[in-house]
């Protein structure tokens, strides 16, 4: 479930213009026009810039294990380029477009259950109502969730998860974390992700998929969901053209989650 969450985030992140703009909030360093030469004298050195930057801690996001996070970010980049994207391309090549869309819709429909549960936990009756409506409409008219007639009926998809529920009840986001394969997160959202995983086990129990012998089914579903979600995510690592992509993604993830929780 977390993969989809991250995927959705990344899709947004890929809208480079918007995210680049938002990014500047973190880098609002004051301008100083004082330039002076260093000892070697051939080029002016703007040490004043650095000094101001260090002093300006205004919109900082807590990232105490940045070194580790950056390693994971780099690992994710390589994983994405060498394994994940080639696999996704293979998946897209063998599935006709309507099938692909159907599979993606199916997983989105399953995730409505999570949104419904968390809408209730956050005491959001309207959100719970819409989500339940979508689940019923798409599971019946939409042939088990393969199609999404609910959206064209005016029921736009919402998304709630454990991390948002925790945030809603006042849990701070905690240090920023980059998770292997899943990407940007923080302590609160990682906790939420574990919670949602536990809930999904309960779900498997209910629909009778929890039997030990059925592990291939569960793994196939998980793999398919991962491929489908990546296929529907435009983000490509290090193609924003920004040397500060790590900072940009960190900032945008944090802001987006804050907006989602406030909502």
């Amino acid at each position, binding site marked *: 479930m977390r993969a989809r969450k991250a995927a959705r985030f990344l899709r947004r992140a890929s809208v480079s213009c918007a995210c680049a*703009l938002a990014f500047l909030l*973190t880098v609002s360093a004051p*301008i100083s026009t004082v330039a002076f030469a260093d000892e070697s004298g051939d080029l002016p050195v703007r040490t004043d810039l*650095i000094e101001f930057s260090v002093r300006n801690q205004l919109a900082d996001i807590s990232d105490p294990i*940045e*070194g580790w996070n950056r390693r994971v970010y*780099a690992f994710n980049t390589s994983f994405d380029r060498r394994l994940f994207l080639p696999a996704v391309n293979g998946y897209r090549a063998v599935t006709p477009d309507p099938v692909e869309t159907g599979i993606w819709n199916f997983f989105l429909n399953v995730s409505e259950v999570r949104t419904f549960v968390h809408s209730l936990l956050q005491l959001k009756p309207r959100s719970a109502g819409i989500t339940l409506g979508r689940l019923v409409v798409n599971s019946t008219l939409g042939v088990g969730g393969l199609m999404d007639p609910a959206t064209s009926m005016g029921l736009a998809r919402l998304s709630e998860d454990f991390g948002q529920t925790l945030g809603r009840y006042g849990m701070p986001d905690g240090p920023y974390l980059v998770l292997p394969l899943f990407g940007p997160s923080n302590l609160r959202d990682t906790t939420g992700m574990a919670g949602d995983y536990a809930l999904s086990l309960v779900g498997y129990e209910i629909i009778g998929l929890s039997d030990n012998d059925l592990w291939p089914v569960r793994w196939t579903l998980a793999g398919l969901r991962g491929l489908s979600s990546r296929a529907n995510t435009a983000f490509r690592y290090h193609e924003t053209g920004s040397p500060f992509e790590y900072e940009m993604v960190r900032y945008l993830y944090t802001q987006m989650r804050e*907006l989602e929780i406030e909502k």
Partner: protein
Amino acid sequence: MYDLCFRLRAICVAGRALLLVATLFSPCFAQAYDYPIDNPYVATVLGTPVEFSADLPVDVPGEARTLDIAHGSEIPEVFWYERGLKFGFAPQPRRAPLVFIIAGTGSHYKGETIITLGRALYGAGFHVISISSPTQLNFLVNASRSHLPGMPSSDVADLYDVMLAAYESVRDEIEVSEFHLTGYSLGGSHAAFLAKLDEERGAFDFKRVLMINPAVNLYNSARIFDQLLEDAIPGGARGVGKFLDGVIRDLAVLYRETDVLRLDGEFVYSVYEQTKSRFPPAADAREIQVAQALIAIAFRIASANMVFGADVMNGSGYIVPRNAALGKYDSLTTYARASHAVRFTEYADDLVIPALMASNPGTTREEILRTVSLLAIEGYLASAEHIGVVTNEDEIILGPGELDYLKQVFGTRIKTYPRGGHCGNIAHRDNVKFMIEFFTGQGQEDAR
């Protein structure tokens, strides 16, 4: 009540009369330009709404290609992910003319604008090769000799080499009948200099060259953007954080109201429409201010990426201290802030111009600044019949008198649209039609 009915009827009558007049004079008004956004800043940010856009092919074949042309220099650890120069290539299955497209400031070969142009040209039957701007990080790291982009003299030589190498790498896959060249924004200005350079080096012998929304003087245009940041944001660069806080709060309010949060062009347009209908007179000033600020910020971000790249590649100590050897996993947050505080013109004055003066002893700052303007190749442009310009009457990157200057130099070879700001109308159906006809030569024949 009666009054209202009367007024409605009067409006209907007036409307019908207008329609009649319009039909009578339709040859005169045949194709009134209907690009809808009349503020140039808002147009620049929002681009062309879908209902006014040309129908473009969705599936353009070809993937990014990578060239290994690092001019012998090592790529620093911190840019490990930028190894290899990337360009876009969309081949036709048959013999066809090839168009090179050069991106604008800070944009790469698959930015939104270049994709639009590429789809239009590919759809019209051209092979397309799209090249990142020399001011873009991937180009800067891989293909720049000086690693100090911003001056056409060196950037254009680098660009020309990249175009040669790119063509060389794909020439076995395609059959080319003739070469064309285009570029937008800074890339539009580059196209002019490239055309001149090709006149000397002769590798492509461009049949037609179209400059789309070019700058006349790169330094002036950069100064306009730098100034916009100071003017549109209370407190200038110091106020950017606070200003964006406000924009994000607006977004949050809208998010709560609409339940949907998307950050694509469609969404921004719907926001624009919504806010316009909700607060008709008041929102305009705010919208214009927001648009101005967003443009200025976008330019500053492009500039900051370039400043940081140039600084690291040169080890100049301007942003990153000389003794700090940046590794693959080092935090760049402090340098990000520092880079964003630098004006483009400061970068030019502090790094680029001194370096040029050092490598060409005896040249003055004024002489160098003269080379950043189209004025430097005015004689060539005035007589180069194969070069055309398309821009807008309300173009924001031109200083006082610069549009008139373009009109004077290019005469009948310049086409201006009444609205569109900076590249806002590139995807408009009229603009796309004009561009395609420019390269197919139909426009000229029709005119005769």
